[in-house]
């Protein structure tokens, strides 16, 4: 099959890398250096912020890529594959439930984004949930209904702005004379100490991530569900 099946006797997986100073440092020093209790968020958005920026870019890329691959502008729907399980009948129960659920989901998503410093979650998870709320809307009604909220142009703008927010924080620190993404320097333009500036910046960055993820998740869904025509969903 491939090289993996020829694994030699896989020796010593049980010696964890956890003792190395790297992870120790993350665990023990995060709070001091960034004032963020959730180490995962801190490492994600600060120590390895550059990675995360490109993680956002990956999402963004995927969105653009799918538009590039699938999207059909204009009206050439002739060869569009019709969904095989397509019914238009609206269902009262589903409709009502969704109507109730969606605001709650969105509220929860906002909480997840904002509270990522202290509890599990953050921009990415929140963004996915937020995006899922629109997807739910599109599934329960149809794509048009959801498009009213977030038309395609706005999706793209949102996604781009999200990445820009993230990168803007980096650029800000670069313009202030420090290295890219060195948030601490942002305290000069923020009412906070350098360490708190890191924390605040992380929040900002998370919001940027959330923007992008929300927009792109919905964009991917609507492209996939409408086979690129953006007209009728499932």
């Amino acid at each position, binding site marked *: 099959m491939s090289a993996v099946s020829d694994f030699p006797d*896989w020796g010593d*997986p049980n010696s964890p890398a956890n003792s190395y100073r790297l992870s120790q440092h993350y665990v023990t020093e995060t709070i001091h250096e960034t004032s963020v209790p959730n180490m995962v968020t801190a490492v994600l958005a*600060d120590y*390895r912020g550059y990675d995360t920026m*490109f993680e956002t870019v990956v999402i963004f890329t995927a969105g653009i890529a799918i538009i590039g691959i699938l999207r059909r502008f204009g009206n050439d729907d002739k060869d569009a594959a019709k969904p095989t399980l397509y019914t238009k009948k609206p269902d009262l129960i589903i409709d009502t439930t969704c109507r109730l659920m969606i605001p709650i989901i969105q509220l929860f998503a906002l909480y997840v984004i904002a509270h990522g410093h202290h509890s599990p979650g953050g921009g990415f998870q929140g963004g996915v949930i937020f995006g899922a709320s629109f997807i739910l809307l599109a599934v329960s009604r149809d794509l048009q209904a959801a498009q009213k909220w977030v038309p395609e142009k706005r999706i793209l703008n949102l996604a781009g702005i999200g990445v820009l927010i993230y990168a803007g924080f980096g650029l800000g620190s670069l313009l202030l004379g420090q290295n890219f993404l060195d948030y601490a320097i942002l305290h000069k333009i923020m009412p906070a100490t350098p360490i708190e500036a890191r924390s605040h910046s992380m929040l900002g960055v998370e919001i940027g991530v959330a923007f992008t993820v929300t927009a792109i998740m919905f964009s991917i869904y609507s492209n996939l569900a409408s086979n690129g025509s953006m007209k009728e969903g499932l």
Partner: protein
Amino acid sequence: MIEQAPALILLVPFFVSIFVALLGNRFQGICFPLSVLSLIGSVAASVTTLGRVINEGTIRYRLGGWEPPMGIEFRIDALNALVAVAVSGVGLLAAIYSKRAVLAETPDKVSQYYTLFLLLITGLLGMVITGDAFNLYVLLEVSALTSYALIAMGPKRATLAAYKYVIIGTIGASFYLLGVGYLYIKTGSLNMFDIHEQLIARDIFDSPAILVAFIVITVGVWIKMAFFPLHAWLPNSYAYAPTTSSAILGPLMTKVMIYVMIRLTFTVFGSDFAFIQLDWSDIIVWMSVVAILAGSISALAQTDLRKMLSFLIIAEVGYMVGGVWLADDMGLVGSIYHIIADAFMTLCVFLFAGIIFVKTGKRDITALDGLFTKMPLTMVGLLVGAFSLIGIPPTAGFFSKWYLIQGGVASGHWEYVIALLISSLINAVLFFRIIEIAYFGVKPAEGHGHHDSDTHESGPNEASFSMLFPLLATAAALLVIGLYNQDIVAIISSFVSQFNFGVIGI
């Protein structure tokens, strides 16, 4: 700003790509100038960085201001700086070429195209300059996703090729990720240089996990660079993609992966581990010999121009992998020099193929009928590229072969030398077939024809300036790289000389 030049190398195209995505739909006209400007900025930044590296030695740029290995750093030495210049330069030329070609091939997705294009360059540049093993994976995926899309934007056949590429590319990238995981489990670090230090400090080179990590990473990278038995995805993808996409993917994707291989082999694992402890160079050189021959011979069987070129890429990958594994100074120098030279010469021939496709709508080499009279300047561009691929002085291709063969001779790998020569000859056959068709026409007149005048019907009918300029600029670049090879090699050898191979050629 000079301090920030390393970051600007990729930030400029990155930011602009987002602006293009935001504004491109409304103002289609700005996509092209913005992209070109940003790539000019990127070239400038990478050249500045190269200058600094030459003067000051390795540059370390801490992102987020964190001390490595806590944070991610760029670590730029002579090798990356050089490759970054090549990548951004090739990107710039391909971008200029795109102007008309995009309008011709994917007219309704201009802004998407440029966004993806710039993100691809961003990803590739990021891979080149980063010093963090995991960050490399992320950027690998950025460039992979963009390249899937760039290929899938093509016509019918391209979609299936793109699908295969998605699957195989993901396997490759995942293998790489897995290997990094193995390294992490053993060393606890993700910074490439720190991993190496940890490997030494803990003295765990004997551990099977490290061995597996090495194998998995190498295989993953080989898949991504289409090294011979793992190359199945490449020919169709590059042959059927839009010409603009193959003009950028063909030259850069495989070359950057070769850079990654060199970087990982030497910086992370160290030459002692790779060459002395494992002692696999014989096997791998033989594999590369097979790759070279297989690539060249498959290329001979093609009549589709771009497919033929795609197989040539596979052969060229064989050159470079073999060159690295010769375990010889000159071989390594040759490989690195070939990364740069080959990036430009592949660009040259792919641009040519693109121009032909856009102008004639044919993919076949019969499209070249009588081209010397119809498009003389285009043919000049091709000639330089072809001579370079064949290895005729003073083009860059000759000198890379010169160094590679020198490495082969010095390390006693005669099979490699012979394979290189055979492949050069096959390239000669391939390109003179093209040149013949272009020169004589598909069906030359019988007997002594063509007296009395220049009988070819139409006068010159050149491609537009925005297509021709990059082609000729690439051709010029090939000559410059060839003539100034000594300076480039001097830069490379400042990198290579850190590793003590037996033979010191310089």
